[in-house]
């Protein structure tokens, strides 16, 4: 059987670039403000007088002790993240054994590096591909607020313009011990999450909107 190679690539590089440019400009126009940090649920315990059940405690313990980070290292903080990963400051003893290349299998994004407007749609895409529950640690000064490059024409002043951030770790770059402290803070935050659904919530969730009772 013959194989006939038709090496015609119907591939227009310029139109791919124009599409990418349009996406970046659209994202830049829509991210003028800062996305608020997700911390309202920390006060829920007090507001609604709910205490964490043993089941909640067990689920939180499992989640916080096996956080798997997603791959996302643009710049210099990546070197300190790698140093935190290898033998001297071992991150594996905190459960972060695997660095998952596929964001669908990860639940933590440690953003190690400066975010530029050209990279922003890709980071947003990676964040949206992660499954709930997911958390974000902003590592380094560039991730918290733009850092030393804050007034540059191509730099996003902080990851919280694009994705919601849970823990901020300052430093330029932060030492591996600082990153470990940030991860432990996140673990304390996860320990207070409320997971189990109470019966009134379930009823409300199942009832279709605008319809009274069941047909």
């Amino acid at each position, binding site marked *: 059987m013959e194989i*006939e190679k038709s090496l015609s*690539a119907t591939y227009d590089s310029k139109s791919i670039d124009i599409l990418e440019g349009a996406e970046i400009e659209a994202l830049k126009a829509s991210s003028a403000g800062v996305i608020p940090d997700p911390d309202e649920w920390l006060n829920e315990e007090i507001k609604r007088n709910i205490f964490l059940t043993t089941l909640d405690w067990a689920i939180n313990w499992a989640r916080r002790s096996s956080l798997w980070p997603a791959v996302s290292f643009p710049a*210099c903080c990546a070197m300190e993240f790698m140093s935190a990963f290898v033998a001297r400051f071992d991150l594996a003893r905190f459960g972060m054994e695997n660095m998952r290349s596929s964001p669908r299998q990860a639940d933590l994004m440690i953003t190690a590096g400066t975010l530029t407007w050209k990279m922003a749609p*890709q980071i947003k895409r990676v964040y949206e591909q992660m499954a709930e529950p997911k958390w974000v640690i902003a590592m380094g000064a560039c991730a918290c607020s733009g850092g030393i490059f804050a007034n540059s024409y191509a730099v996003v002043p902080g990851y919280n313009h694009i994705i919601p951030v849970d823990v901020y770790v300052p430093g330029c770059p932060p030492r591996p011990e600082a990153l470990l402290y940030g991860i432990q803070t996140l673990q304390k935050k996860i320990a207070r999450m409320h997971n189990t659904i109470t019966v009134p919530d379930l009823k409300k969730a199942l009832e279709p909107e605008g319809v009274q009772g069941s047909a």
Partner: protein
Amino acid sequence: MAISTETFILNIGPVHMSTHGVFRMKAVMDGEVIVDIEPVFGYLHRGIEKLAEQRTYTGIIPLTDRMDYTASMSNNLAHCLAVEKLMGIKVPERAEYLRVIMVELQRICAHFLAIGAILNDCGAWGTPMMYMFREREKIFDLFEMASGQRLTYNYMRPGGVSQDVPEEFMPALKKLIAQLPGYFEEYDQLLSKNEIFLARTKKIGILTKEMAINSSASGPVLRASGIKWDIRKADPYSIYDRFEFEIPTGKTGDCFDRYWVRMQEMWQSLRIIEQAVKQIPTKGEIRSKVPALIRPPVGEVYTRIESPKGELGFYIVSDHSIAPYRYHVRSPCLINLTTLRDLVIGWKIADAIVIFGSIDICMGEVDR
């Protein structure tokens, strides 16, 4: 009956596992073989050249740290040499020797990372990287003693260095340079004759001499193709003419040669450090008298040094104000990537990753 095939486009990056940062390649593939490739950069473009026009000459030094973040001391040195050439400043002896020691230690550090990354790309998942990082941590301890920082040092200043090293530095350095040959031999034994590594890198991605010179490649990439050109010997800066060392060159210009040249350069760096430690004056000034706000005379300068990645050049135009009029960085990683397209076409995608890893780039410098 004939089957017809078509090419398809595969997008590699910018978020990918290979530890070189945010780099994207649009590859046109025919099955597993790459037919055409187009690299896309700019995902880490932070506008350093424009930011430098708004900062004083001393204030640009932290910006230079963050360009090639695997070799921050080299970037600092190149900037300080350029400013010193503009102003005509002479650096005191002890500062010169300290600079050479720091830069050569940094070269060993950067080559460790480069070799670890090449092996990571070959598929030795993390183990050589972990071994290399063990040594890097020892060198980071020394840098932390001298400058207070592990990664972006901000150590050198126009006219010398910012602070003298503490007393514990020299004994710790002597202890480390006694241990390093043992580690180099361990890696040589494990890697240079390893069958799998040889099969993955020998005769892959051959860069000929003419192509290397025409593409302005520099550093280990140029030397692996057999061209003996090292700026430390050809155009000596600082006090490199006082040291004896050799320039290792490869024979064929394949990926293995690029790894081997880096391995041998680490031995030569160790030789330079040993000589510097013998010759360094025990006491002396570490910075010459330089005004706090530097105002160079009107003029321009292009200074180049041999950084671990290649020829790093700084072009500064000054108009007698406290900030430069134009600040340009000749980035070795960006220019070495000119060779990527010719090297990769015709190879399978797994080989393309190894070839790209052997050129050894750092995205902070490519994009600036």
